[in-house]
């Protein structure tokens, strides 16, 4: 049978199974196994157990539960309240200051935590009510939390990056380094946008009244709230980038530090143990979900590899005479469309086995493509009609705000992410500079 036809049938099967709500892991696994059996024969099924066991014992993937564990601990530690208090004292007097500060806190959170949910959830509970109380426009408040929360994908550590890097055989350390400059760039784009809009029209985000402003003494005193986050960031990032430890070891050190932070802040062994218990369950739950998707994907990508699909596509592209940039842009558009209906993990699993080999054949850098991919996943996190952040926001905003209002408030931030995407495409140095500099 024609390989192209087989692939087409596979994707058809995937779509049908998705529609009847088959979990992603089972869809990819079952379609992969069935195709492998039908096209190559039962003997080829023997390929699966060795690669599955390799993923299940992968020290790199072991970083995932540890980073999730850190995220859950910090979400419940109350550390975000302290940082927000500091931001409030320092930036409250500036128009749009709280929104800018929220983005800043999201950056700090993203640098401590590997999952994106944590920053969005905590900021939704702390920053959103505070901003609305000070008369900030709802759309700006929702937008900055959603956009800022999505920064967690790009700023290391990031579980999405670990999954991408392990599937496409890239170094996690390099990928983490590559995300730093684009992440900070995007954060500054967000902050300048908020600042410019609120300076032009202060009624959008009024400065807090003079009598509520903090004195300089209070301002300086509040700086100590940054101590614990910086210890944690240093213990994770410092150990990775200094070459002291692998990302997984760094995650373990970070988890130990995060546990200490929780016990220090809760000041009670019982409370602390309760948080530990919830966080350990959540870490196992999410890790199991991610790992079984990866296992299902192994069967799927085994078929794609035995069929030689990337090479076939390359030949097709050459024979039509398509420009390689056209191919790249088509891929970006496909990410955007998939992002409207899916989360980051299903998109990684379906596209990486095909796109990454193809992109390498076309002469693009897979690391650079990885960062483009991650920026796309940030957009997927926000794009209506489906997205975790949209439904979560609906849960925390005041009753009067409709789903339509939430959709409208995230669009400016999606456009800003698009600007960042184009900047990275035009200036690949933004991604490549830091990894080459450190030379890992």
């Amino acid at each position: 049978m024609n390989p192209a036809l087989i692939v087409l049938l596979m994707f058809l099967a995937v779509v049908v199974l998705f529609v009847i709500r088959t979990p992603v892991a089972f869809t990819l696994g079952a379609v992969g196994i069935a195709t492998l059996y039908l096209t190559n024969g039962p003997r080829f099924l023997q390929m699966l157990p060795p690669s599955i066991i390799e993923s299940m014992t992968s020290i790199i993937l072991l970083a995932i539960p540890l980073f999730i564990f850190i995220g859950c601990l910090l979400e419940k530690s109350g550390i975000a309240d302290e940082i927000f208090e500091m931001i409030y004292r320092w930036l409250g007097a500036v128009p749009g200051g709280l929104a800018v500060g929220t983005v800043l806190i999201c950056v700090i959170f993203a640098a401590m935590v590997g999952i994106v949910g944590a920053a969005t959830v905590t900021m939704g509970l702390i920053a959103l009510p505070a901003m609305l109380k000070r008369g900030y426009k709802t759309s700006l408040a929702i937008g900055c939390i959603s956009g800022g929360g999505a920064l967690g994908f790009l700023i290391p550590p990031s579980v999405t990056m670990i999954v991408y890097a392990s599937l496409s055989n890239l170094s996690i350390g390099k990928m983490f380094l590559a995300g730093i400059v684009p992440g900070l760039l995007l954060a500054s784009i967000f902050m300048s946008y908020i600042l410019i809009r609120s300076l032009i029209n202060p009624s959008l985000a009024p400065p807090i009244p003079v009598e509520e402003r903090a004195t300089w003494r209070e301002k300086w005193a509040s700086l100590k709230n940054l101590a614990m986050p910086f210890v944690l960031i240093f213990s994770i990032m410092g150990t990775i980038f200094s070459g002291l430890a692998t990302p997984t070891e760094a995650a373990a050190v970070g988890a130990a530090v995060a546990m200490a932070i929780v016990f220090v802040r809760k000041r009670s062994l019982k409370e602390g143990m309760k948080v530990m218990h919830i966080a350990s369950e959540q870490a196992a739950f999410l890790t199991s979900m991610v790992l079984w998707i990866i296992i299902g994907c192994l069967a799927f990508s085994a078929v794609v590899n035995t069929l030689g699909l990337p090479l076939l596509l390359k030949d097709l592209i050459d024979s039509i005479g398509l420009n390689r940039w056209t191919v790249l842009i088509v891929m970006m558009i496909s990410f955007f469309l998939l992002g409207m209906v899916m989360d980051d993990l299903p998109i990684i699993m379906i596209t990486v086995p095909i796109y990454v080999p193809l992109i390498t054949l076309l002469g693009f850098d897979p690391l650079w493509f990885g960062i483009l991919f991650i920026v796309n996943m940030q957009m997927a996190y926000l794009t209506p009609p489906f997205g975790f952040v949209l439904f979560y926001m609906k849960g925390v905003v005041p009753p009067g705000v409709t789903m339509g209002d939430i959709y409208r408030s995230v669009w400016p931030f999606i456009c800003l992410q698009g600007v960042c995407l184009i900047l990275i495409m035009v200036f690949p140095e933004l991604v490549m500079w830091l990894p080459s500099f450190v030379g890992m």
Partner: protein
Amino acid sequence: MQTIEKTVSFIEKMNEMVGRSSCNLIFVFMFLMVYEVIARYFFASPTIWVHELCGFLFAAYVALTGGWVLLKKGHVAVDIIYQHFSRRVRHIMDIVVSMVALFMFVILFWQGYKFAWHAFVTNQHSHTLFGPVLWPVKAFLPIGAVFFILQIIADFCKIILDFNKGSAQ
């Protein structure tokens, strides 16, 4: 009917217990990894066993929690169109999903069992200095598949029971 309900509740209790107790492995990973970092950088004596042992325990962590996550409906799915179908159609879809999942895990059990059995009879050891026997870690694939298969059967029974209740009304 009652035996079915009892079996379902037994399977679910077991998956819950196995899954929840495996969660605590994260503390073991953390302890071992931190120990390794300290041993290597403060005492210049890296271990030969921490990474490999953590890898083996990670296989257990993933295998033993799979069925529990399925029980809690935690395996992410794309449910945008599903909710618009009628109850009856949804039941049929759920049955198809159970079949698809059963197919995948029966194959994984069969292949994983052969793989682990081969390692057992040939007494394979890892090619590292530590050199542990390999069959226990390889056995985690079929073991994990068993927990999945049991939970899939339990879910299937629940769908059928629910379906019957629906048609009786």
